[in-house]
């Protein structure tokens, strides 16, 4: 499917085209121009978005920004909070997500497997605000945790587990069946085959999945607002009963404040989030496409 096939021309008899052929020839050119334009319609906003965020965000970077908390105009507590919430969510999500992915890949070729697969996809499609509201009524209010790190992390975990599961499943499936058969032939138990053979061989894919999950939780806002709350102070090291700040909240609220100083901080926070998200996604996709 190379571009050279595009040079196939409508039959040119005697160097002269009929009106119909000319029209088809023009249609071909116009059609491809429209397709190229469609690509630009999606590419240009991304480039503009990146340019705006990088230029406005980087110009707001300063030592003070990274060393003071939000109450003094900095982002220190938000950076720490985003790390705490995202890594906290991974503590819950990785064992469950990777475990479920292993189950689906190794033993999930049955009815139960396809039901779990379907429901995992359904959970992926559930709006994050619905999950946030669920956590609000169960954990924040029901269990009385209040706005807290635990409620925020658990909500993010529920969000990313289905992603982790499905990407883990896909990468473990790529491990050749012959490796499993060789291990079983040597008398290995299920556990050994699953963890020592399949998981080891598929580890790069699993790590990619974990990093992609991290990128998703770093960029989330909606499910955190009513679970993690917001604080302008540093984390009080409590798992429950204590709001915590995070970067995406800064982006959301500071841009609606009147002062241009607040806007600059919002862009700086957005740039930090984008740096994490882009670094993870670009490297993950480069690695994945090279492996294929």
């Amino acid at each position: 499917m190379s571009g050279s096939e595009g040079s196939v021309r409508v039959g040119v008899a005697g160097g002269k085209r009929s009106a119909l052929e000319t029209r088809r020839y023009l249609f071909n050119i116009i059609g491809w121009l429209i397709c190229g334009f469609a690509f630009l319609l999606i590419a240009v906003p991304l480039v503009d978005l990146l340019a705006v965020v990088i230029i406005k965000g980087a110009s707001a970077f300063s030592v003070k920004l990274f060393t003071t908390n939000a109450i003094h105009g900095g982002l220190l507590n938000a950076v720490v909070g985003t790390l705490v919430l995202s890594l906290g969510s991974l503590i819950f999500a990785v064992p469950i997500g990777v475990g479920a992915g292993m189950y689906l890949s190794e033993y999930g070729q049955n009815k139960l497997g396809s039901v779990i697969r379907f429901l995992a996809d359904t959970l992926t499609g559930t709006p994050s605000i619905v999950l946030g509201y669920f956590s609000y009524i169960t954990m924040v209010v029901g269990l009385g945790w209040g706005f807290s790190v635990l409620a925020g992390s658990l909500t993010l975990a529920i969000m990313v587990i289905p992603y982790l599961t499905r990407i883990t499943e896909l990468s473990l499936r790529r491990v050749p069946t012959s490796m499993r058969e060789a291990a079983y032939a040597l008398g290995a138990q299920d556990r050994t085959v699953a963890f020592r053979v399949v998981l080891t061989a598929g580890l790069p894919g699993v790590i990619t999945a974990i990093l992609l999950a991290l990128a998703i939780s770093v960029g989330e806002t909606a499910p955190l607002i009513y679970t993690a709350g917001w604080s302008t102070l540093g984390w009080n090291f409590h798992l429950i009963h204590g709001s915590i700040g995070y970067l995406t909240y800064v982006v959301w609220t500071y841009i609606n404040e009147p002062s241009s100083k607040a806007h600059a901080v919002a862009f700086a926070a957005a740039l930090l989030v984008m740096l994490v998200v882009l670094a993870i996604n670009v490297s993950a996709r480069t690695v994945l496409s090279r492996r294929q």
Partner: protein
Amino acid sequence: MVSSEHKSPIDPTPEERRKILAIAGLELKTGLASGAGQAGGSKIFRRVMAGIALIIPAALFAVIFFLGAYAWKAIGFNGIRFLGTINWSLGNLYGNGVVSHGYKIEPGANYGILAFIVGTLASSLLAIVFAVPVSIGTALFLAEKAPTKLRPILSMVVELVAVVPSVVFGLWGIYVLVPLIAHVIGPAMTALFGFIPFFNMHNSSGSGYGLLAAGIILALMITPIIATTLYDALVQVPKELRESAFALGATHFEVVTKTMLPTARVTLIGGIVLALGRALGETMAVLMVSGGGLNYLPDTIFTPISTMASFILSQLDSALQDPTDMAVKSLAEIALVLFVITVAVNAAARLLVRGSRNVGQ
């Protein structure tokens, strides 16, 4: 997106082998480890792994159960009025609670979400209208016309649009798109189509925040979903089909639109429905650019709106002021309605794109 080139054309990947067999109506019975290790297999280990995997369905049912249980009173009080009226009012929060039809509420309280349902559907459908042509063009361009060397980079550009966090899209929307609508797109549309009241900016606040801004932002967010789904389907179209069309003298564009696109039609529709599911539930970006209109239906494309998702987020603080809790429970009912709609849409999409390699991101 998966590159179409394999090392050897006669050596199908396991994935392709499975697909080929599936097309032939056969099933690959040697499914990885299943059945393989019966001798050395321990039932307990497999049960533990199944138990871990079952946490996912459990979480999903917990969401349904607790939202439903929490919203139960609101469902009883609101009845069908909930979906059919446009008046969302918390009532007189300083009055004493009154008992209406056996439910304790604030005087004058009424919870109708028709305006938000309309806002959700209107913004999502607008997004689909914008996104579908752009996605088709993008997918065709990437699959057929993009220079081979540039293709990985160009397709990564499209994929990166999908991973930009919602709140960053909202930020860009406020800073770039909303002013653009207020000063360029809006006046231009008014000048061209102003005779149709729906497209006339003078009939709205003219701030740029509103239905159109929400629709464009959503379109940007869902275009990669449709484009990558279609791209994956296009590169799987059998080579013979393309080649025979070329041999009949069709132009390249005719080959693509008249033979390849029809083959990928079902997958394309599946991708569109999947994208619709995403658009319906999108919260932050919509909240930031939609203008947050309450209690009226949009009468122009520039009118501020609220969607169900953005309304839940923006109203919880004020709903908490209601001492009878009916407002907070009604918000849970909105979440439940939104959940049911997105699940239905997603289930339809999964059935349509079954077999596509997308993980759903």
